[in-house]
């Protein structure tokens, strides 16, 4: 562990009673202030990074799971999954936004869908519309397999390009 690192301005700073009181109050304000923000975020389930409610794995997981996927439909009606390619691998982190697409305005939905298309191998394909499809699965712990049990088309976004 490094032992140095003090400021090099030197000087003999004798601590007065006022300085001690000031230091104590600083300690209280900073500590209580930080704890108050944490407790507020937890109590109110606030997510305003870096203020967070620290919900790490807090929801019970079961055999049932679901995921969202974008399906591109071309002019002939053929469906192809929209998969972000390796050149844009970092954008795969945005998959959590798919479930919120229905809550967005029409324009914002379209902008996001087009951005994902541009990051996929379908960037130059003629796509009529993109479907947001929700897939539900049931898992098996022994076999480690997931069995798709249902799908539901949640949203259709006209693209026409």
């Amino acid at each position, binding site marked *: *562990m*490094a*032992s*140095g*690192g*003090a*400021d*090099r*301005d*030197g*000087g*003999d*700073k004798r*601590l007065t009673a006022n*300085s*001690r009181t000031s*230091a*104590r109050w*600083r*300690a209280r304000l*900073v*500590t209580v202030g*930080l*704890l108050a923000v*944490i*407790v507020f975020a*937890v109590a109110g389930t606030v*997510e*305003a*990074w*870096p*203020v*967070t*409610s*620290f*919900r*790490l*794995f*807090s929801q*019970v*997981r*079961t055999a049932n*799971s679901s995921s969202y996927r974008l399906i591109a439909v071309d002019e002939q009606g053929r469906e192809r999954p929209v998969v972000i390619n390796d050149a*844009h691998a*970092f*954008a795969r*982190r*945005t998959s*959590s*936004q798919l479930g*919120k697409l229905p809550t967005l305005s029409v324009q914002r939905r379209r902008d*996001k869908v*087009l*951005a*994902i298309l541009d*990051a996929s191998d379908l960037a130059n394909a003629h796509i009529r519309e993109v479907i947001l499809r929700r897939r539900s699965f049931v*898992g098996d*712990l*022994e076999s*480690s397999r997931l069995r798709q049990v249902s799908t539901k088309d949640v949203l259709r976004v006209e693209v026409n390009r």
Partner: protein
Amino acid sequence: MTVTHSSVDSSTKWSPIGVARSFDRRLTAPGSARTLVQMRTAFVLIIGMRLLLRDWWLESTTPKALFEPVMAVRWLSGPPSSTLVTVLWVVGLVAVVATVAGRWAHFTFVVAWAALLVLCAVWSSSGKVMHNDILLLWGSAPFLFAQAPSRAELDAVDERWGWPPRAALIVVATIYFVAGAQKIRHSGLRWVFSDNLSWVLRQGTSPLPFQIGHTLAPLVWLTAVVSGITLVMELGAPILLGVRKFRLGFLLLAITLHGSIWLTMGLDYYGWILTVAAVTIPMSPLGDWWRQRRFPPRGVDASESPDLGHG
């Protein structure tokens, strides 16, 4: 941690006011400047490590329409340019070096912390809350408000130096506690007494060729035991970190917990392990022993000095 005795009788000692007074006494008691410097140095080195070991420039490749800025970077209208990322990265690293070298240590610590905050905030602006660096940022936050001892004050023990390391310990303990409390709040004891962790393991992907998580997932009894230990560790953090002799034990638990999360699910939480190390080692008997050997009081043989137990 130095404790001063008062004339509070046993009937009020455990009352809310008595507990608050005891907490206040312990928080604001004098402490060693060396402990503060060691912990601050540890934090800034972890910040430097995080700055160096991640490809922050990937953030610039996020499509603008998919950039969902979190609160800390709401002022950004789109993903940062690679130039901005480079500037933040260089400024952050220079600040880390300056803090370790003791050059305007308080100011440079704030700069290093802020650089990591902004870069992490952009990294988290993908629509999913990222917790990888959250313990480091919160745990080190008390040092943003702490004075920096001068070289002449390194051997000093007074109220200015005692509280920042203790505040960091308190923040880290609180975060672990609330993480456990949130599990109880949102899932109850089903979080332990069910196949919950089995499914967590099943849905993760190990970075190793052998999917150890998938192999362990069917052992529901084992995952329930591990869940229980995890919850006890989190809810017990205020006690485990509050009592000096348990702190290194908590560090071992943190290494086991976060290390196993990486092994079974490939999730990067080494920043949490290092943060726990930063707050526990200087504030443990091991830290006391090291300071005693390395910096014995002037005129005293290190091998014969009593354990000062400061910090």
